[in-house]
Structure formats: structure tokens, C-alpha cells
């Protein structure tokens, strides 16, 4: 079974440019997440969905970041405009809830460099 797929794997843009990341969760999982990971730190949740509804986006900088759940499967994360401080790895995860617990599976991430 394929894991979480993310693209692109790397993106280099100039500041003030827009950028978009795409995520395809594991088939059958209904809860995609977007995390941000700065160098030397653990992932931090940006937004998570349950089906098509965003249920926790408290850490998402809504003035420049937006996320979408596409047709109940794929998800995109967009930054417009990008700032220098947005350089980081953006991780997508999807989850399967079983036995009363929630196990999250992570994709490889997109490394964003803003120049």
C-alpha cells in the first residue's frame, strides 16, 4: 500500500511569490493534517481536517496561508505571499483511528526555501 504522497519534494521561490503544496493521503484515511517543521525542531500542526471540514486551524497564519480538501481525498496548502520565515519543511499526514487511538502516518514533506 502506498504511503502519504507529497509534491513537490523541494521548492525554491523568491519572497512575495505564491507557492502550493499537494498531498495525497493514504487511501481510506479521512483525516489529513498539515504540519510545519523548522530545522532542529519537531513538527507543529497547522491544520487538520475531518472529512471536508477543517476542525483545527488555530496555528494556521490565515492572512497568508490557506488549505483545501479536494473532493474529499487530496489536500493542498498554499502560501501567498511567501516570506523568508516560511522556509521550512511542510509535512502532510493522514490518520486512521482504531482501538480508540489515532495513528498518524507522515509523508516525506516538501522542503520550501524562500530567498
Amino acid at each position, binding site marked *: 500500500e502506498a504511503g*502519504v504522497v507529497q509534491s513537490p519534494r523541494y521548492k525554491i521561490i523568491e519572497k512575495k511569490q505564491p507557492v502550493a503544496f499537494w498531498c495525497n493521503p493514504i487511501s481510506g484515511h479521512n*483525516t489529513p*493534517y498539515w504540519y510545519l*517543521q523548522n*530545522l*532542529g*525542531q*519537531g*513538527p*507543529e*500542526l497547522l491544520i*487538520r481536517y475531518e472529512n471536508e471540514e477543517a*476542525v*483545527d486551524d488555530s496555528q494556521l497564519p490565515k492572512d497568508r496561508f490557506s488549505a483545501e480538501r479536494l473532493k474529499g481525498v487530496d489536500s493542498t496548502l498554499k502560501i501567498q505571499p511567501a516570506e523568508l520565515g516560511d522556509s521550512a519543511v511542510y*509535512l502532510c*499526514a493522514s*490518520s486512521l483511528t482504531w482501538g480508540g*487511538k*489515532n*495513528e*498518524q*502516518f*507522515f*509523508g*516525506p*514533506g516538501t*522542503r520550501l526555501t524562500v530567498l
Partner: protein
Amino acid sequence: GESVGLHLPTLSVQEGDNSIINCAYSNSASDYFIWYKQESGKGPQFIIDIRSNMDKRQGQRVTVLLNKTVKHLSLQIAATQPGDSAVYFCAENMRYNTDKLIFGTGTRLQVFP
């Protein structure tokens, strides 16, 4: 290859030795804890988890210990192998929000021959 972090706490062990990675968590209300392994250029990978009603759980070559009194979690890796080299994160799950993981800083494990 790429580096997840350049200034992480680092544990260096010899191949075949046992490794112990420690983590202090912040919220006494957390009731579910997970250890993740992150190799260079990859996303975190689930290793083992434990609920707060347990103080020890064993997997294949790995053991997680939970001390709720001092809010401390540890991951023990038996007979450490070169493939164990990675950054290890503990994550806590808040009782009132079962899907939100709070990750710790991470520890880099280096295995030398």
C-alpha cells in the same frame, strides 16, 4: 543527505549497545504518547506508543517507559544498529483533543561501528 536539525541533542552509541533516549513532556493532562523516528529527508515514522494507564510497553527491540509523576518518557533501543541512526521525537496527545500531537524537540541518535 539533508539534515533535520543541526543543533539537536545528540546521543552517540556503538553498534550493538543499548540506547536510551529521554523526553520530558509538558502537559499532565496528556494521556497518549508516541515515539517517532525521522530519517534524513523523510517524514516521522511511528515506532511505539503508550497510554497513560501503563508505565511500560515493549515492541521489537524497543521499549517505552512512562513516568507520569515527573512527566518523563524514555525510549530504549536494544542492540542498536546503524539503521537506527535518525532523529527521534516524542509526541504527546492531549486528552481533550485526541488528534492533536505535540512534538518534543528531538534527539539525534548516531550509531558508530
